[in-house]
């Protein structure tokens, strides 16, 4: 199977969009198949919850379907739908549900850490450390988290990230720097690894 160039892919996607708008809903499956994994990963890396990620994933594609007529092909479809995914996640993190949930989770995390005591896991980058960093990531403000997820986790370029987030590349960089500072403070302030490394 030959690899489609960006231009060919774009042209093809526009045709599919026309088909969908003409009434062929099944044609939309192409987008779900093509961009589903990327969108799901993007969501998962932000919410770290499989069940929630599934819900948000569906919301992203339903929203994309409803707004399909407004897609102007000025950006790639992938960028467009990633932007929708970011917005859906952003809406979730701004929702009351998330905030109340976060409060209870913080409590349980503190409790778990207290119970864990000194049972050290000496491996650097252990699952615990990774999980701690994920938690810290979840505590970041949306715009910092989005920058980290896109640039560090998803390894997207600043340009791509700026297209998705619709902000300048410089802003992406400064947000990323600030996010690193916050993550470092959070991680080494709460994780057991920090205690070990300080000593």
């Amino acid at each position: 199977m030959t690899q489609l160039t960006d231009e060919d892919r774009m042209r093809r996607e526009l045709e599919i969009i026309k088909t969908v708008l003409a009434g062929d809903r099944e044609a939309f499956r192409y987008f779900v198949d093509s961009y589903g994994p990327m969108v799901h990963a993007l969501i998962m890396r932000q919410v770290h919850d499989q069940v929630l990620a599934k819900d948000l994933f569906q919301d992203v594609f339903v929203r994309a379907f409803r707004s399909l007529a407004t897609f102007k092909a000025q950006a790639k479809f992938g960028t467009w739908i990633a932007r929708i995914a970011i917005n859906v996640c952003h809406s979730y993190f701004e929702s009351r549900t998330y905030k109340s949930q976060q409060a209870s989770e913080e409590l349980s995390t503190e409790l778990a850490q207290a119970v864990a005591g000194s049972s050290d896991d000496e491996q650097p980058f252990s699952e615990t450390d990774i999980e701690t960093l994920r938690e810290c990531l979840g505590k970041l403000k949306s715009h910092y988290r989005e920058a980290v997820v896109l640039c560090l986790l998803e390894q997207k370029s600043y340009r791509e990230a700026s297209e998705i987030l619709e902000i300048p590349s410089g802003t992406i960089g400064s947000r990323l720097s600030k996010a690193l500072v916050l993550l470092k403070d959070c991680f080494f302030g709460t994780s057991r690894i920090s205690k070990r490394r300080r000593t």
Partner: protein
Amino acid sequence: MNREVARRLFPDYVRGALDEDVRQRIDDLVANDEALRNELSRYHTIERMAREIGEQPVEFPTELVDRVMARISAEPLPAATSPRTKARTLLWALIGCGVAVLIVMVLLALDSRAMTITMKGTPALTLTAAFGLFAAYSVATRKYRLGTAALSVCFVLLIVREAPDIFEGFDGQKRVTDMTLPQERRGADTDYARTDSSKSDRSTSPEVSSPEMKRKDRAQVEEETNVPHSEDLRAVEQKKRESPLHEKELSDRIAVESDKKSDEWGAPPSSASPRNKEIPDSAKEDSAANAEQQKSDSRSITSPAAKIGAQKKSEPAPAPEKRRHQEERPGNKSVEPQKPLGASAGAAAPSQTEDFSSEPVLRDGYSESNNAPSFGGDADSASFGAADDEGASISAGAKPAENGILRQRQSASSETLGKLQACTWKISDQEWKVSTTRKGGVAIGYAAASSPLNDDRMLVLVTLRLDDPSYPRTAAIHFESSVSGLRLIDGALNEARSFRVSLQNEKRPMTLLFEILDEGTQGKIATITLGDERTADGIDVKRSTSATDVDEIRFAAAVSEYCSLLKAPKNTSKLTEVLSVARSTLKSNSGPLRSRFVNEVAAQAGE
């Protein structure tokens, strides 16, 4: 580069955003500093862990595709829309403007007073236009929150009756559009013809807003009112300020006198007083006739003298003349029009509104008379007529209780109560002049009654109204004062030496309530100078009475008295009197503001 700078640059260092030379300097610094090295390693750790997280595959549940497709199959097809073009944006902007205008029109229809609500000299129309543009912009740019906010502010500005202080003069009937304290306008007052006129003209009518018209009006006003140049006026103002009789002294004097007279509160004017003696029979007949005519009216207008008398502590016997006329005239009998001022009545068109239907019309004699022809035949009763300077004049010194009170639903009490805190009015030694930049057709009515609280004060109610449909819808009138002991009881209870008033044609009249000292106020208290194009209609002089007005005057007096007392040491007996008046008027015309006022006074009086 020091340590702190290097630490701040660590995030950029880790993400590879620094130039090579900066990186090198950081490397050098870190190599020799253990703490910095640890700090940098932490950043590296975070960065590496983040990348590791990113490299971990996220399993994509394939059933999600089917779930999404199932949901999409239930969704309606997205409507194909074309991107918004400039033409569409313009169209939306126009629609937004239209909506804004429509809303404003509805608001205006709901409350005709809305047109006159202003924000410290800014006409409502300007505000409305500004907010309309905001609304249009928001619709065009789809920033609906901005539009909603703008329209909300517009709505509040146009509807709220109890406006904050910035809306001085904001009330229903007084179209006072610019009222400031004399201290604030020392300079501006003197050249009112230049500043206020232009402002007013801008705000009221496009006809007068042209520069030629403004210049013409200014020259006209200055010429007709003999107003000197502003520099001269400033000199006069300075002189007056240096004169020994200051406003404060006058104010104190009134306060002292009112205290002295407190035991005479409510006493009717003595029939043996010189003023009363000089009232001719014809005037009394007219007054009684008007009273009878008003009685027959649906608005339940009754004899002023009887009403005022009934509300006073010591009940005076009604004037025999008056009683005779009241008995003789049947209730529904129309009243003969009174003599037109300075001209034949035949040329005058009667007023089209019921308020003044039976009243005479002042016609072009208004501009011809050099004497002030008395309304009712006696200059000493409340007389009305043309002034020396080709203007009309309102003369005072009338016998208060027996002069008619304009039949006018007056809300002086509510407007004063709305701003009770602003009890800062003072006595002015200035004469009040009323001039307009418009041509004639202004109906003027007046009434006078002794203050229910102090016999040495008199309350004068003046009503102005554009009374000819052929004239522009609105007109601005300029006031300037110079009569001794006259103060305006306005919405803010301020003494306003200069202010503008907008009249709306065929709308409710504007009513001004003045208080004057009885002493030495035998002549005219206000000069009304109209524009150059006087028509046959001239000035429509009216005089009538209603029980409501009497109550309002009494109540306004109580409010003003209360305001005076707030500045003076507490006088419980006086407060009790004020409370008594407020309560008596409360019975006939209750309302939340009145109740609030009564409660306030009661609290002050210690009840």
